[in-house]
């Protein structure tokens, strides 16, 4: 292996002989330490704390009124848990862009396609239901900027 | 090559600091706009596009004007422009970045901007505008950077760069034509519904852009060791002269059609801008200053004596920049929206936060321009050394 230093323009002078030395080691280590600190900074405040698992409450008046057997959402609970996000987006497309406002689930039950008027009619306790899981995983679905959740409305009515 | 941007005089760093400070100020107010809404500006239901879009329109013109130095050099072998093509291209890069930023700042929901690509709509001129602007930005970055790098290593630019250069010439014309088509196809806006909109845009672009380039060349000569060249500046001055003359002529063509046909739909916007209607006439002094100033500048520029003296040339170029800016940056928007389609008058004036956000975007553009010019000028100095 020669000491000839080659690049794409052709041969250059011989590779310069530079002593191997780690320059500015103190500052490099300091910088790395600061960077590492920044990277783990979100975890530090929660170290050792136990955050309770989310417990969404289903004891709204509307749900209590239904018989035990009938207390099922538009789709089975496991499906809703995994897919309500995509389902709401599909519902949105159906209503706004296609004008279809009736949802027929695989069991043949019919529902009006509406977040505020169907979902929130039964689940009228947003802070105790929706927010439970959403806060736990730190997501902020932006539905509520426009869509009214019935819970807030009741609170506003009381305050006014 | 970018390493040249990190070494400079105190004056260079001072300039960068001032521009960065102005940008930070604008950014702070933009955050406020994001939370409280576009109501922070002076726009409203009747004048729904204002200062931001006006600046965007003006700067698209400046960006397109790079073609005025690229075309003579690459298509017609006008060797003298070899010194300034890079300055023109980098000015285009900076101007297009400002354009795109102004559009982003004007959006009601900037978080949803990618919907334009998610749901492409070829019948919308805005869809095409976004595409052509971004491609033009990419073209100029690629071309400018590669040609500069080749110049540094004293090799001819590769074939694919030449191809992109030839594409960029009609592309430059297209960006400003597409921007004009944003306005020229709207049935309800008599001030804008004219076939001459695109030609007017182009003529004022080729007046304003090269004027700015002349001023930048004079600054570069004064503050660096690179001289863009007296002949080059004189050629640019000739381009400014003819473009300004054509721009004034186009304006008088518009005035004739509108005032001779006496059709109220078109007439009332000119009446509002130049005489005021029902006591509303905020822009009257500005419009008269613009058109009279532009005409005088054009006529003076015809005389070679005023062009050869670089002080008067600089003054006249500055005049062209100011008057074309008033015409496009103030008059175009307001004239289109006032009176509104119901023939009611709601006047418009930018608010302080709006002006500061706009200033911040201009500062961003000039910050990028300073850095790019530093790189270009350093390479040129190095090559000529």
């Amino acid at each position, binding site marked *: 292996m020669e000491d000839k230093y080659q690049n794409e323009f052709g041969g250059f002078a011989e590779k310069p002989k530079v002593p191997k030395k780690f320059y500015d080691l103190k500052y490099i280590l300091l910088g790395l330490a600061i960077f590492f600190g920044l990277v783990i900074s979100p975890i530090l405040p929660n170290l050792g704390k136990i955050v309770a698992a989310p417990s969404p409450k289903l004891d709204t008046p509307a749900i209590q009124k239904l018989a035990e057997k009938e207390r099922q959402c538009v*789709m089975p609970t496991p499906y809703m848990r995994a*897919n309500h996000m995509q389902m709401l987006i*599909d*519902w*949105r497309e*159906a209503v*706004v862009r296609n*004008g*279809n*406002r*009736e*949802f*027929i689930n*695989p069991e043949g039950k019919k529902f*009006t*396609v*509406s977040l*505020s008027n169907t979902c929130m009619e039964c689940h009228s306790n947003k802070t105790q239901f929706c927010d439970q899981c959403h806060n736990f995983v730190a997501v902020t679905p932006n539905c509520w*900027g*426009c869509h*009214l959740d*019935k819970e807030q*409305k009741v609170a506003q009515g009381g305050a006014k | 090559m970018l390493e040249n941007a990190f070494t400079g005089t105190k004056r260079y760093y001072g300039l960068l600091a001032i521009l960065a400070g102005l940008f930070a100020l604008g950014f702070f107010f933009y955050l406020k706009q994001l939370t*409280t*809404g*576009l*109501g922070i500006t002076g*726009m*409203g*239901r*009747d004048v*729904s*596009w204002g200062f931001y879009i006006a600046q965007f329109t003006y700067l698209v013109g400046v960006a397109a004007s790079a073609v005025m130095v690229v075309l003579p050099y690459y298509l017609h072998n006008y060797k003298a422009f070899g010194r300034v093509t890079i300055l023109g291209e980098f000015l285009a890069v900076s101007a297009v970045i400002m354009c795109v930023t102004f559009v982003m700042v004007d*959006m*009601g*929901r*900037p978080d*949803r*901007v990618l*919907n*334009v690509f998610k*749901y492409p*709509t070829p019948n*919308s*001129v*805005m*869809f095409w505008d976004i595409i052509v602007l971004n491609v033009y930005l990419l073209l100029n970055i690629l071309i400018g950077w590669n040609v500069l790098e080749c110049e540094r290593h004293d090799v001819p630019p590769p074939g694919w760069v030449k191809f992109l250069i030839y594409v960029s010439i009609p592309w430059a014309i297209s960006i400003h034509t597409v921007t004009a088509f944003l*306005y020229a*196809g*709207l*049935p*309800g*806006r008599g001030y804008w519904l004219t076939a001459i909109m695109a030609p007017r845009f182009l003529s004022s672009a080729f007046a304003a852009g090269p004027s700015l380039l002349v001023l930048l060349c004079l600054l570069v000569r004064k503050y660096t060791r690179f001289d863009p060249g007296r002949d080059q500046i004189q050629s640019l001055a000739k381009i400014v002269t003819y473009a300004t003359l054509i721009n004034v002529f186009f304006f008088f063509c518009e005035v004739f059609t509108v005032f001779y046909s006496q059709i*109220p739909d078109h007439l009332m916007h000119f009446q509002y801008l130049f005489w005021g209607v029902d006591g509303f006439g905020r822009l009257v002094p500005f419009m008269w200053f613009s058109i009279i100033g532009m005409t005088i500048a054009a006529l003076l520029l015809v005389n070679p004596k005023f062009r050869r003296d670089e002080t008067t040339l600089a003054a006249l170029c500055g005049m062209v920049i100011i008057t074309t800016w008033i015409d496009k940056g103030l008059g175009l928007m307001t004239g289109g*929206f006032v009176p*509104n*389609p*119901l*023939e*009611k008058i709601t006047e418009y004036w930018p608010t302080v936060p709006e002006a500061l956000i706009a200033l911040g975007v201009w500062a961003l553009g000039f910050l990028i321009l300073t850095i790019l010019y530093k790189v270009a000028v350093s390479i040129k100095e190095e090559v000529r050394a």
Partner: protein
Amino acid sequence: MGIDRRDFIKLAGLSTLLGLGGNSALELLRPGQVAAALEAKPEALTAKRWAMVVDMRQLDEQTAQKCSAACHQVHNVPDFGNPIDPAMKISDAEKVRWEIKWIWTAPYDNAFPGDEQEYMDEKVKDLKFLLLCNHCDNPPCVRVCPTKATFRREDGIVMMDMHRCIGCRFCMAACPFSARSFNWKDPRPYIKKEFPDYPTREIGVVEKCTFCNERLAKGLMPACVVASQGALAFGDLSDPKSKVRELLGSTFTIRRKPFLGTNPQVYYIV
């Protein structure tokens, strides 16, 4: 490590493509695809071409205001002159700028600019015409929207998709009838009585009359039509027996700016 730059980039690119492709393959094969359906409600009102006839002979200013109020009420349209918290009061100039109106009144020379005559019937000159989005057949607003957030439905309604709107306001510039409003500020502090069955809007989107498509889907007539006590007729132009066809066939009607070719579908009987 004997790999050179070119081969590394090739390998990285290929891996990325496979990774992305692999993920979508997983999505397609994932269990949980259910057989559910989304359809129109059976009681929905349908038409081939919705249109409205405004009979100004029967519409006095008071009723017109009632129509406007009904529409704005059921659609949570804010009233910037009436904040919930009096501390949020705004100036008159700001009120004019930020105003949101889906349906409103204007005198003849604003409703039909350029049509007014000096010696016309005073009654007509002072008449407060009810103005709204015309749901044109050839809408310039739909032509210019870069995301199809505003689109023309098969039944003629020019719809607004508030979820997709990027707030560029190109449609506002394109509309020759000034029918569209933009949310310059958060509207919620200015909605005194929220209507719970319809959403509000957020800052940064455009809104306008949608011919009450949410009511039509439930089998109800638009709110303004109901409030107009018969002055507003709403129906299907393609049905020769509909009220609107009957009126159009028997009475002379005018439309706003027909010469622009947008083909507006709101007709006025003066």
